């Protein structure tokens, strides 16, 4: 029963696809002059909209098609509103409305036919027409075909992209004619691939050359059954397919490496502040995760203060997160850690208590619910290098940010007076004090610096994960792991350890799953520490 149903619906979707594509092609082929013959009367417009008032998505799709083919001037706006779920009908009435803003509970509405202001509506008075996924795809196709008359290259390219695997005996000639008329190089390239794929299906060996090295999955999926036979064509297709697969495998490896480095960069960002407080000062700070959380909340607050400008807010959050978290760090150092110097167990307990207090504070002040930090447009989406390799922009940005923070911190430790004093205090506290370094001030600044860097990690994490009271908890164990694995007190060690743990984790993940990958990494690090307690990079010389 289900089987037949689902076969039928498959055929239907196929058919739909074709009709949309044919429609696209027609609109493309025919010139503009034919459209919009005459505006329709109000009664006709009403009838067109009335057809949408049905429960069946199939019938709704046909009604949308009728609108697209009609001469109504309002049709683009209607279809767009239908697509956005903003076209509706009066409940217990006959008027049609377009909802101009559907946020909140009272919506401003306009008359759908005359576009005159119609006051406000609510869900009790206006019933918006519903659409589902298939219908959405169909309406998008209709809108695309309406906008084709504008002739812009991007929509032609998208339409050409859709043709791959969809060329058949019915439309092959018209596609070929279109290809010859096409001016744009890239559109022509897409159409060549579509036609070559069709030719190969018809048994043309020469057409395979065009497909060699093409990474589009539809090419691979079409060639796979062809390569299964044992004709000359099959053998040739096999070799093309082999080439495609090996090329894809290389891009897959590159992608895994990127995933690993990106996961590693998060680890490094979270751990590097700890590398300073724990590694350099020897303070076990269990509230480190909460300092990260404070950085993330700072980002959110700056964004609240600057509505509509997420990019600017994010840029301001970088110094903001650093300063706020740094200030918290200084306060923590002055009020708690200073009094527990040299008593690691008590520091651990005190800072753990502090972490709980900070979490509950955030819950009481901001609510236990997660806060939404929007990403600016330039951090959304992916950089599509080719069909097989794309790098998501937010992760790429975090990776670069991590490297910049690392370089900055390294330069600070290496070239500034503060860095010199920090290193002096770490290596030999008594001697440094004897040389006139004010060790307590250095302690305070170092802890503030570590906390500030944790704040920066929070700013970065707000782009990748939830901003909520528990944000920090997930990173505290990982951070200690990275610092210990890299070698306590060594910034380079933290970088190398974080990046390598990230890559190992991402290589393992597809094989064994996320849970087991994490366990394997943890066990691996424990074994490594057994063998080499000082971590990857051992501190050189004697330290006290």
């Amino acid at each position, binding site marked *: 029963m289900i089987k037949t149903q689902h076969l039928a619906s498959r055929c239907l979707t196929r058919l739909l696809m074709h009709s949309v594509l044919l429609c696209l092609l027609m609109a493309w082929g025919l010139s503009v002059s034919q459209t919009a013959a005459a505006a329709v009367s109000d009664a006709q417009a009403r009838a067109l909209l009335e057809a949408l008032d049905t429960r069946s998505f199939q019938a709704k799709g046909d009604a949308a098609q009728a609108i697209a083919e009609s001469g109504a001037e309002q049709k683009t706006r209607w279809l767009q509103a239908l697509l956005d779920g903003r076209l509706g009908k009066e409940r217990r009435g006959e008027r049609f409305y377009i909802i101009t803003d559907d946020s909140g509970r009272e919506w401003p509405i306009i008359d759908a036919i005359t576009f005159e202001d119609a006051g406000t509506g609510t869900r009790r008075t206006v019933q918006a027409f519903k659409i589902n996924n298939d219908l959405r795809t169909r309406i998008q196709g209709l809108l695309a075909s309406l906008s084709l008359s504008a002739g812009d290259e991007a929509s032609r390219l998208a339409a050409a992209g859709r043709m791959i695997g969809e060329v058949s005996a019915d439309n092959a000639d018209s596609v070929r004619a279109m290809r010859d008329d096409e001016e744009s190089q890239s559109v022509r390239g897409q159409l060549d691939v579509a036609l070559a794929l069709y030719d190969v299906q018809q048994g043309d060996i020469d057409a395979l050359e065009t497909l060699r090295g093409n990474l589009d999955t539809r090419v691979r999926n079409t060639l796979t059954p062809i390569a299964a036979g044992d004709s000359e064509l099959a053998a040739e297709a096999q070799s093309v397919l082999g080439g495609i697969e090996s090329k894809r495998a290389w891009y897959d490896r590159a992608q895994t490496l990127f*995933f690993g480095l990106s996961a590693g960069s998060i680890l490094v960002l979270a751990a590097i502040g700890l590398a300073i407080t724990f590694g350099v000062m020897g303070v076990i700070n269990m509230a480190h995760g909460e300092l990260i959380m404070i950085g993330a909340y700072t980002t959110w607050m700056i964004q609240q203060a600057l509505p509509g400008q997420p990019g600017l807010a994010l840029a301001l959050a970088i110094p903001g997160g650093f300063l706020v978290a740094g200030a918290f760090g200084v306060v923590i150092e002055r009020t708690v850690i200073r009094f527990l110097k040299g008593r690691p167990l008590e520091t651990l307990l005190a800072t753990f208590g502090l972490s709980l207090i900070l979490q509950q504070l955030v819950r009481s002040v901001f609510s236990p619910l997660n806060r939404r930090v929007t990403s600016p447009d330039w951090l959304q989406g992916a950089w599509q290098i080719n069909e097989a390799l794309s790098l998501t922009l937010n992760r790429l940005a975090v990776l670069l940010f991590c490297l910049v923070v690392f370089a900055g911190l390294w330069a600070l430790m290496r070239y500034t007076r503060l860095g010199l004093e920090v290193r002096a205090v770490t290596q030999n506290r008594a001697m440094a004090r004897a040389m006139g370094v004010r060790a307590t001030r250095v302690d305070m600044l170092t802890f503030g610096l570590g906390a500030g860097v944790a704040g920066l990690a929070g700013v970065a994490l707000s782009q990748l994960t939830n901003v909520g009271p528990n944000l920090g908890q997930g990173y505290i164990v990982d951070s200690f792991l990275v610092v210990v694995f890299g070698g306590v007190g060594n910034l380079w060690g933290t970088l190398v350890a974080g990046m390598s743990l990230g890559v190992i984790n991402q290589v393992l993940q597809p094989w064994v799953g996320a849970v087991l990958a994490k366990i394997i990494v943890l066990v691996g690090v424990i074994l490594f520490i057994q063998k080499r307690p000082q971590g990857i990079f051992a501190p050189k010389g004697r330290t006290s």
Partner: protein
Amino acid sequence: MTTTSLRKLIATSGLTLGLAGFGNVALAQAQDEGPIRVGILHSLSGTMAISESTLKDEMLMLIDKQNDAGGLLGRQLEPVVMDPASDWSLYAEQARDMLTGDDRVDVIFGNWTSASRKAVLPVVEELNGLLFYPVQYEGEESSENIFYTGAAPNQQAIPAVDYLMSQGVERWALLGTDYVYPRTTNKILEAYLKANGVAGDDIMINYTPFGFSDWQSIVSQVKDFGSQGKKTAVVSTINGDANVPFYNELANQGISAGDIPVVAFSVGEQELTGIDTAPLVGHMAAWNYFMSVDSDANYDFIDDWVAYTGNDEAVTNDPMEAHYIGFNMWAQAVKKAGTTDVDAVKDSIIGVTVPNLSGGASTMMPNHHITKPVMIGEIQDDGQFSVVWQTPTTVAGDAWSDYLPDSKNLISDWRAPLRCGKLDVESMTCEDGPGAE
């Protein structure tokens, strides 16, 4: 195995009955006057606070409303709120607190995760309490003292998969958080899909830890899995706030609902408030209620809720409807029994029918599950769902799945004289419950 035999031991020694009887005598005097005490056992802090604190507020609203209408049996209702702080063992401890002493509560509304329910189960059975559990869960459980007002797998997962099959989906990625609910649900779904002729190669199963945020390689794996030429869908039992980075990653890697639709069982209006839904339009969720459901009962409930919270943006969701139904069922059962006595209410509630928020009515079945309509909603750009499909009638919850070999012969029926939570219909032997003897 051990817990079952232990429970049996307790049951045979008559300890449960004895305790319950003793409690009744002691309570009989205290109960006639004074308020009826309603326990609310939802986490107000910790990881689960995000979902559960809303339910606490909703219960307070329902109790207020009932009191304004004159209370129950001429007595006022008094809420008893505790905070188990997302700590499963604390749930058991606090349930014990609620059910012992002179100020014993008459009913508990609470819990969210299956782990916390499993922790409370032995306590409410031992002390003969009443627990209304409002969240969709994995089934394979039946307790004399628990009423499951959320969906069982056959009221959510199976109809959702049927819908996707009717949309031409042939390849399935089952993604879940690594704990009992997703694992059991996916086991049921895998068996169901295979019974419907889906090949093993066309099913991919993946589990991730709680709060997971590094979705990049899994999403890219799914993308790869879905680009083999067959229409693919993701069935997500990912729970809690791991959903936000998951959906963000989907959007960033350019997977739209037109390519690979995701149908989720744990993502509702509440969860979507933390996400920009514009790139997610068309991804789906299966529930028994959506805030966008078109009925006057629903609009009234939303108006009440907005007025109660004082927040114009406040959202409602499926577990809230479950509590709404559960509370009204309990109130009606108490009226019917004329007492809040647990054993009397347990008997009188079976068959009770109350209106639900989608314009129909829900009935408490003998297996302590309720009848509900099943709906599929597609995410809209305003953070709401639009219902694209709905079962023509309500579906009765099934405690023991028909698709798992271990439980396909089992049913549960708590009516006298059967009183059995785990009855093998083939051999007619009862494996659990007072009817076992």
